[in-house]
């Protein structure tokens, strides 16, 4: 009895010391990231491994000089596209090769993050905690963003370090390629953030994990295929802005300060679109996603 009374006393006087909001959000995000990489998600781990193997294989191609950039655009346009520069290598390595896997990974990993909370309604418990709606969204954004960074920026950084090694680990090489390092990080963040936001939008709109993943994949690739068909028919570069894949690729080339080009089954074509059009469409799409997700969750807050 005495022991029980002591426990009750401690229970009565308990007042938790609570951390700040940023710590809560970061903690939620990191736990979510670790859950994505746990053995409960074998497909996610398999895809990450596949992308890394792809990167390794691509890098072997690069190091042997077999990378087909010598003949990418023909002799006349080689200077325009700055082909065979490290910038183009990285863009193709990180994004061209892994694009299919990247979209699949984004679809699988993001689809359940908000959908599951909405299905089991635990979102009500999260939103009643000392965090705002935006905090919650950031906490759900962090896991998929970090996961995608692992397959976008990280492999490129390893290639970068390897190339530095081949250059004799000279500090001058780093100084000469400092913008390349920054570009790699910006490109990785840009792709990861964009696909995360779009993925979370589907996760919110279709609150069943598998359907949300399927819809995301179909939307991204379906729109790409339709747009490519229209592009062939109309021949206007601006049509490409209607496909997420092509839109992100075009901005990716901007990040590396190379002229955007379009890769399709029939070959490679240079793209000429005004910056304001490209960034206008991008902001419109991402902004719409953000507004939609925020609205959906505000509806969940108010209703059962």
């Amino acid at each position, binding site marked *: 009895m005495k022991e029980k009374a002591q426990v009750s006393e401690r229970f009565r006087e308990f007042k938790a010391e609570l951390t700040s*909001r940023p710590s809560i959000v970061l903690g939620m995000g990191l736990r979510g990231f670790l859950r994505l990489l746990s053995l409960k998600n074998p497909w996610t781990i398999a895809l990450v491994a596949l992308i890394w193997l792809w990167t390794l294989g691509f890098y072997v191609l690069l190091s042997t000089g077999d990378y087909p950039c010598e003949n990418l655009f023909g002799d006349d346009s080689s200077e325009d596209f700055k082909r065979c520069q490290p910038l183009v290598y990285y863009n193709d390595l990180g994004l061209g090769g892994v694009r299919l896997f990247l979209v699949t990974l984004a679809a699988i990993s993001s689809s359940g993050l908000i959908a599951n909370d909405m299905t089991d309604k635990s979102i009500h418990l999260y939103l009643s905690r000392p965090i705002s709606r935006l905090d919650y969204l950031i906490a759900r954004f962090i896991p998929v963003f970090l996961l995608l960074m692992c397959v976008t920026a990280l492999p490129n950084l390893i290639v970068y370090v390897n190339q530095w090694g081949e250059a004799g680990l000279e500090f001058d090489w780093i100084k000469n390629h400092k913008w390349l390092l920054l570009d790699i990080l910006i490109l990785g963040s840009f792709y990861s953030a964009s696909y995360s936001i779009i993925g979370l939008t589907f996760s919110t709109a279709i609150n069943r994990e598998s359907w949300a993943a399927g819809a995301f994949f179909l939307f991204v690739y379906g729109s790409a295929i339709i747009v490519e068909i229209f592009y062939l028919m109309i021949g206007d570069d601006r049509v490409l802005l209607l496909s997420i894949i092509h839109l992100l690729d075009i901005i990716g080339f901007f990040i590396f300060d190379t002229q955007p080009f379009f890769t399709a089954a029939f070959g490679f074509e240079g793209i000429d679109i005004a910056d304001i059009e490209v960034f206008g469409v991008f902001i419109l799409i991402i902004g719409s996603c953000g507004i939609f997700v925020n609205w959906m969750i505000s509806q969940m807050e108010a209703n059962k």
Partner: protein
Amino acid sequence: MDDFTVDIPEGKIGILGPNGAGKSTFVKIALGLIRTTSGSVTVLGEDLDRNTIDIRRKIGYMPEHDCIPNSMTGVEFLIEMGLVTGMSLQSATQRTHEILGHLMMGEEKYRKIEEYSGGMRQKIKLAQGLIHGPDVIFLDEPTSGLDPKARQEMLETINGLTEVSGTNVLLSTHILQDVETVCDHVIIINNGKLQMQENVKKLMQRQTDVIQVRIGGSTEDFVKQLKKSGITATSGGRGLHVPYVNDKTFEQIVDSAVKSNCQLYEMERATITMDNIYLEVVD
């Protein structure tokens, strides 16, 4: 909610009202999940509009509907809720085991929530609201969907846990017995309006014997005549309630009816229960 002003004291407070009365809306406004279009809300002495997030540190919330993830064990879920509230891992883990010990969950706490009975799920929902030692916990229909035995257990658990942790309770329900069992103050709302605010003990004292009277003619004259005999009648239900003292009260009612030229249609001894009071207020 419309033209709703209420000052809620400390303790265990019941919000009573029929389905759709605005109980859940009231709780969500107090949590800061729904913003008011006008007026102001003060929770624990702080302006809700200015300090919504900080106030939530001092509040626990148990929603009405099922909202716990089936894929986790009871322990995992409570620790996660502790962490999301801002507790350290060590503190959340320790507190989880303490609460689940008080709830007598035994080894069940290591099983997945999908295997839990309705009563156990409600216990887990209650526990997540108390994990951080809040000053007040909002319980939204905590006995909803439970069988009588599980309901009684739930009410005892709420009483026990909040008693031992010294937590204030705001209990939203449409079940009168829940309020009688748990609360010391009751607020009755209907159609988004405050209908009544009363101490439960005082309310229970009103559950005295009365004589239900229904008359034809001038009710005003009849009430005046009764008053001359030292009896105060109140309106209630379909007619009047006259306090029963002894059998002589019946004679006094008949005399008053004769003197005020009223027809006596009905005169029946009845007991006012909390149900009667609630129905009167809501109707």
